[in-house]
C-alpha cells in the first residue's frame, strides 16, 4: 500500500463556475490503476466525482483520460508508474521530487461535460460516422461465407482491436491545430473496411479520404496516437497504409499528398539524399505535365514559397547553386547501389507488420503447425473424447 495524491481537473456544469483543480488523497497498492484511485476517492470522499468506467480491464474503452498529460485509459495506467512519471516531470521542470500530485484531466480535443466526462458524440462518433463505418459489399451475399485470404482477416484485426476509447483523438496534434481533421480513430476504422476484401467500395473510400483536405493527408505524422492507443491499433500506421493504398489505386489528391510522397521517393532514387528545392517543386508541379499545366494551387504554393527562399538567400542559408536550383543536387557515389535497392524493393513490396508477425519465437515452425492441427481437427478432438 502507498499514499498518493491525485489532482483532478473538475468541472460542475450546474455551478456556474469554471473548471478547477481538486486534490484527493488515496492509498492503494502501486500495481493498482489510476482508475482504482479515482474510484476510491469517489467511494470514500466525493460521490459526485464523475468518471466513465465499466470493465476495469481495458476492454470497454470507457475510461479515456489524460494522466500527467498523456492520453490513455485510467484502468490500464498503474498508479505506481503514474507517480514515477509525475515525479520525473516535476524534476525536469526543476520542481519538487517525490510525491508530486498525479495530474488527471479529461480527454483533449473534446468538449467537457462534467469532471472527466467528455462529449464524445460531437467529436469522436461524428467523425466515425463520417467514414461510412459499415461493410459495403457488392450484390447478394454468398450462400455460405465469403471466402477470403486468411491473412486479410488477421490484417484488419489490428483495426478491429479498437475499443473506441478516444485516447488517440485526445492526443491528436493535427486535430489540435485543425479540429476538422477526420482523426486517427475514424481513419483506423476506415482502414478496417479498405483492408476487408468483402467491401466493394475500396476505391471510393480512398478517393473520398484522400481528397478531403481534412483527410488522410492532414495527419501530421506525430505518433501521438500510436503512443496513446491501449490496444496496439497504431492509428497512424493505418493512415499511412491508407495513403499507400490510395497511391496504388492511382488516386491523385488535390492536397499534393500523393505527389509529395512520390517526389520524395523518386528524388532518393535519383540522388540518394534529399534535394529540398526539387522536393518542393515536384510536390506541387510534378513531372512534365505538372510544369506544363500547373494547378492553381501549385502556382499559389510555389509563389508563396518565394519569400521564404529569399529570406534563406539573404541570411546565407541557401547560397549554393545546388540548393537554389532544383535538380542540380549531387548524386551519391554509389547511386547505382541505391537504384538496385529500389528495383528489388519494388519487385517485392513486402509489408512486415510486427503486430501480426510478432517477434521471433524460440519454437520451430513445425510445433506451430502441430498445435493448430490439434485444436481444429475434429478427429483429434474425437480421440480425446474417446481416449
Amino acid at each position, binding site marked *: 500500500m502507498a499514499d498518493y495524491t491525485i489532482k483532478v481537473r473538475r468541472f460542475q456544469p450546474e455551478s456556474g463556475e469554471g473548471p478547477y483543480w481538486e486534490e484527493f488523497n488515496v492509498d492503494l497498492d502501486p500495481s493498482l490503476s489510476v482508475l482504482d484511485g479515482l474510484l476510491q476517492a469517489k467511494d470514500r470522499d466525493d460521490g459526485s466525482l464523475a468518471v466513465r468506467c465499466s470493465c476495469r480491464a481495458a476492454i*470497454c474503452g470507457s475510461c479515456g483520460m489524460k494522466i500527467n498529460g498523456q492520453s490513455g485509459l485510467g484502468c490500464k495506467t498503474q498508479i505506481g508508474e503514474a507517480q514515477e512519471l509525475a515525479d520525473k516531470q516535476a524534476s525536469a521542470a526543476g520542481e519538487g521530487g517525490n510525491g508530486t500530485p498525479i495530474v488527471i484531466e479529461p480527454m483533449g480535443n473534446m468538449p467537457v461535460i462534467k469532471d472527466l466526462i467528455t462529449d464524445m458524440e460531437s467529436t469522436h462518433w461524428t467523425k466515425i460516422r463520417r467514414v461510412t463505418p459499415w461493410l459495403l459489399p457488392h450484390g447478394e451475399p454468398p450462400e455460405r461465407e465469403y471466402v477470403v485470404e*486468411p491473412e486479410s482477416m488477421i490484417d484488419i*484485426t489490428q483495426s478491429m482491436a479498437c475499443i473506441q476509447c478516444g485516447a488517440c483523438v485526445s492526443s491528436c496534434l493535427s486535430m489540435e491545430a485543425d479540429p476538422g481533421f477526420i482523426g486517427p480513430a475514424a481513419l483506423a476504422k476506415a482502414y478496417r473496411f479498405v483492408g476487408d476484401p468483402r467491401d466493394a467500395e475500396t476505391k471510393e473510400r480512398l478517393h473520398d479520404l484522400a481528397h478531403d483536405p481534412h483527410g488522410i493527408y492532414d495527419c501530421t505524422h506525430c505518433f501521438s496516437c500510436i503512443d496513446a492507443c491501449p490496444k496496439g491499433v497504431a492509428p497512424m500506421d493505418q493512415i499511412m497504409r491508407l495513403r499507400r493504398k490510395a497511391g496504388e489505386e492511382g488516386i491523385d489528391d488535390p492536397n499534393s499528398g500523393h505527389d509529395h510522397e512520390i517526389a520524395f521517393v523518386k528524388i532518393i532514387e535519383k540522388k540518394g539524399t534529399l534535394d529540398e528545392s526539387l522536393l518542393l517543386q515536384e510536390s506541387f508541379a510534378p513531372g512534365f505535365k505538372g510544369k506544363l499545366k500547373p494547378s492553381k494551387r501549385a502556382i499559389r504554393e510555389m509563389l508563396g514559397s518565394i519569400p521564404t527562399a529569399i529570406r534563406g538567400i539573404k541570411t546565407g542559408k541557401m547560397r549554393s547553386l545546388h540548393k537554389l536550383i532544383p535538380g542540380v543536387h549531387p548524386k551519391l557515389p554509389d547511386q547505382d547501389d541505391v537504384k538496385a535497392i529500389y528495383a528489388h524493393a519494388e519487385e517485392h513490396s513486402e509489408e512486415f507488420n510486427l503486430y501480426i508477425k510478432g517477434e521471433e519465437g524460440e519454437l520451430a515452425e513445425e510445433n506451430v503447425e502441430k498445435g493448430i492441427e490439434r485444436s481444429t481437427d475434429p478427429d483429434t478432438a474425437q480421440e480425446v473424447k474417446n481416449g
Partner: protein
Amino acid sequence: MPSHDVLVIGAGLAGQRAALAAAEEGVSVGIISKVHPVRSHSNAAQGGINAALNPGDSWESHAFDTIKGSDYLGDQDAVEIMTREAPEEILHLEHLGVTFHRNEEGKLGTRAFGGASAARTYYVADITGQAIMHVLYEQLMKYSEQIARYEEWFCSSLALDESGECCGVVTRNVADGTMELFQAKSVILCTGGNGQVWQPTTNALICTGDGIAMAYRAGAKLMDMEMIQYHPTTLAGKGFLITEGARGEGAHLLNAKGERFMEKYAPNKMELASRDVVSRAEQTEINEGRGFPDGTVALDITVVPKKRVHEALREIVLVGRDFAGVDITREPIHIKPGNHYTMGGVKTDVDGRTDIPGLYSAGETACVSVHGGNRLGANSLLDTLIFGKRSGRDAAARAKRIDASRPSKKVLEDEEQLIADIVSREKGSGRRISEIKRELGQTMDSKVAVFRDEAGITEALETVRRLKEEAKTAYIDDHGSVFNQDLIAAIELGYMLDNAECTCVAALERKESRGAQYRTDYPERNDEEWLKHIDLEQTDDGPQLSYSEVTITQWEPQERTY
C-alpha cells in the same frame, strides 16, 4: 412521450441483435442503453461462438453437449432451437462483416473449447465478443433512421397498463437528469447479468442485474436464480477473466506441486471439462491445501506455441502483462475460480416472452433456459444472438397486431418521488452506497459461491435482508442533475439486493447439487426430486417460490462425467 413499437433496453449483443431483427420487420424501434452501446459487457466475451457449421458436425451433437453441460436442467426444446439456428446466425454475422478467423482455404476456421465434443467455436483472435458487437453497432449506425438510439439513458421502472401488459418504461437521461416516460408496444429487457453482486467478479461495474430486478418488480417470474457460474480462470483480487481459449489452445492447470490435477476430476477432457467441474476441481485443490498461498492455482500457457499465443491469445498476453505483471509465454499465471455468469434470470419462452404480455427478455438477463445449471463456453454469445433475434421478431409481430397502450403518468411521478427521496437524504444519515455494496459482494462470494451449504446461504440471506434495510437510508453526495452517477449507483444497489435475495432463496431451496450449484450438505444430483426449475415471484413478504418443468425432447438425463 417518446413512443416506439419495440423498445429494447440494453445495447449489448442481445439488445442490438433484437433491435436489428425488429427493424427488419418494418416497425419503429428504440434502443436504450445506460452506457454507450459499445461499452456493454458483451465486448468482454473473448473466446468465441459455437455453431455446428462444419459438414462433419451436427446440431444434435452441439445440443447434446449443451444439455449435458447444463447438467440436464436446460430445456431441450430451447437448446434444439439454439443449436439448429446457430449455423445460419454465424453466416449472417459473417455477411454483415464480422472478421472471423479463417482456415487455409479462406473459409471460417474453428478452435476447441470446453465441454465440446468437436471443435465448433468460431472466433476473432481473442476479441470475439468485441468484434461481433462492434459490427452490430456499425449496423445500428447504418440503420439510424429506423432505429432510434438513446445512448446513456438509465431505465428505472417498467410501466404496465390496466390489463397488466407492459407498455413502457421510465427512463432518465443521464446527461441532464430529465426523467421520461417511454411508451412501447413491446419492451425487450437485454440488460445483461448481475455479476456485481459478487466481489470479485469478472463482470463490469455496469452488470448490476437491472433488467432482472425491473422484471421481478413488475411481477414477472424469475427462474434458476441459484445457478451462478464461477469461471475457472480469473485473476485473484481483481477478478479479471483469462479466456477459456487458453485451455482450448492447450494450456495446463497445475497445483502448487506442479501436478496437472484435472486428471483426478475429469480424466478425459482434462482442462476442457465443463466450467463448473473445473471450478470445483480448482477450489477443492485450494481448499485441501494444494494451492498457492494467495489462494490460487496456476494456468500454464507456456506450453502453447508462441506464434499461436500471438495470433489468438493476444488479449491474455496484455492482461497478464498489465494486470498481473506476468509474461504468460514465460511463466504460469495464478488464477482461481471467480464469479462470471448468471444462468438464471427472467423466465422466458423460446421467443423471449415473459409471463407479462408485452415484456420480453433475451441474453444473459433471460432464462429460457438453454444453459440450465451450467453454461458452456462460447454458448453465451450464441444465446444472445439467437434469442435476441427471436425476441426482436416476436416483439415486432406483437407490435403489428395490437394497438398501443398509454402508460399512466403515475409511474413517472412515483419514480421521480423515489429519486427525490434518495437525493434528499442527509449526509451521514446512513451508510455509504459503496460500503453496502462491498459488504454484499464479500458476503455472497464467501457464502453463495462454488461450494454452498444451508448455514452459509441462510447467513447470506440474513445479511442481504439487513443490507436492504440499510440501503433505504444510504445517502449520496451528488445532488445535481448532470451525470449524477451517485444516484444511479443508489438505484443499482437496489437492483443488486433484489437479485441477491432471489439467488439466496433459490439456492436454499434446491437441496441437491446440480451444475453450478454445489451443496456440501446435498452433494449428489437428485433427478427424482429436483429435475425441475425453481421459479420466483415478488410478493410483499419477499420472493415466493414455485416450480416449473424441464422440457425433455431427446436426451434422458445421464450421469455427467468428463
